[in-house]
């Protein structure tokens, strides 16, 4: 078995163990569970509900629902907790769509004011939005028209590979290389813009583009928020630092 498979298996086991820990009332398990899955769940929500705002509201409420159910012993199989978490997030997302209004979080806004960290996760939303703006900006600066065409046809028009190959007169093997290079050039331009924008700013200024790849700040802060939220919902439990 490869190292990658071993790591994957460990992560899978860890999720089940953390779920059991939450069921046993361990607060640290809750925060670790959030840290481990926040980025993954946010990605799923952003992808499924790309055209709506409030992704992080959906994610946070999903964690709240799942952790509460674990604490109340309402989850029969902790080893499938991620499937349950994913389904919960999708259902909450669709509930938002059906209601045709801004998502109504399970916790009222006045209560959220109590927690200083509650708003910290907004930063990652801003970073995401800035990243989108950056892509939009550098798309116009790509050196070749074919880069723009292949990126647009693949990412926006959702066209099939054979269709794009025919339009741009590419072979199947050539398609992967052209798409890869176009993405690389887009990434380089984004990085260049980011570096340029950072001149004169504080060194610790966040980088939307690089954050997507490396930042782990959002999950930690949100985990704190979830922790505080759980403590608020269950005041009899001791709140542990994340």
């Amino acid at each position, binding site marked *: 078995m490869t190292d*990658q*498979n071993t*790591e*994957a*298996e460990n*992560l*899978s086991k860890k*999720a089940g163990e953390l779920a059991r820990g939450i069921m046993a009332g361990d607060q640290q398990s809750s925060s670790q569970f959030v840290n481990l*899955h926040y*980025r*993954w769940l946010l*990605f*799923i929500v*952003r*992808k499924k509900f*790309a*055209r*709506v*705002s409030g992704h992080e509201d959906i994610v946070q409420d999903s964690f709240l629902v799942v952790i509460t159910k674990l604490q109340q012993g309402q989850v029969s199989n902790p080893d499938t907790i*991620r*499937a349950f978490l*994913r389904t919960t997030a999708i259902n909450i997302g669709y509930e*938002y*769509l*059906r*209601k*045709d*209004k801004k998502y109504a979080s399970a916790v009222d806004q006045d209560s959220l004011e109590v927690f200083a960290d509650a708003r910290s996760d907004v930063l990652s939303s801003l970073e*995401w939005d800035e*990243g*989108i*703006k*950056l*892509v*939009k*900006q550098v*798309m*116009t600066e790509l050196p070749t028209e074919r880069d723009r065409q292949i*990126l*647009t046809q*693949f*990412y*926006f028009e*959702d066209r099939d*590979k054979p269709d794009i190959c025919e339009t741009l007169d590419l072979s199947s093997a050539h398609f*992967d290389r052209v798409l890869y290079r176009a*993405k690389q050039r*887009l*990434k380089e331009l984004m990085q260049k813009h980011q570096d340029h924008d950072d001149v004169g700013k504080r060194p610790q200024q966040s980088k939307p583009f690089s954050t*997507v*790849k490396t930042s782990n700040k959002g999950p930690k802060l949100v985990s704190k928020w979830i922790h505080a939220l759980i403590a608020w919902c269950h005041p009899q439990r001791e709140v542990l630092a994340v």
Partner: protein
Amino acid sequence: MSEFQPDKTMLRHYLQNKLSPDDETQLELWLADHPEALADLELDLLMQVGVGTSENHEFNVEPQVNIMSKFLNGIAYVLAAIFMSQLIFGKYFVNDSLTFIDLDNMRGAENIMSYQINPDQDLILRFGVLTDDIYQMTVNNPEKNKSFQFFNLRPNERLDIIVKLSSNQVETGLWEVSVTGNTNTRQIIYELEIRSE
């Protein structure tokens, strides 16, 4: 441990929302165990949304609704447009050959309702009644000493009575329209001011 391993094509189809629900679920659960693949897809998703906006197809932040809702919304917009046009244009419709006046819009109004018409157009008067009675209508212009009477008016299935006045009968000025039922003889009177375009 699952032996599932998505290939490039599957990942591409995932980004383009072309996977079956089962495959999508399997892939997304697999991503939870593969942070590197997740990071790559995050970047792809960012590009996907960014490229979409760069094509001047701004993403709508309003939640999506199903087709029936869209259809009903469409009808609502049309009805709203009709309502607004009635408010703006004096509660009548105009096409190339006739003017439609809905007398029901006048009920409860304190002032005389004023309509601007084209002298070449016929005039259609509609009013609603409460019972399936036989009615008669008198359209009278005392200033110009003109009067038209319509008898044996029977309401349609929607309890509407529709009367047509030809363009050569209609003149500008103040008109009084009275409606009386054969059984219920209470007279309903409408006052219309007809102006020329």
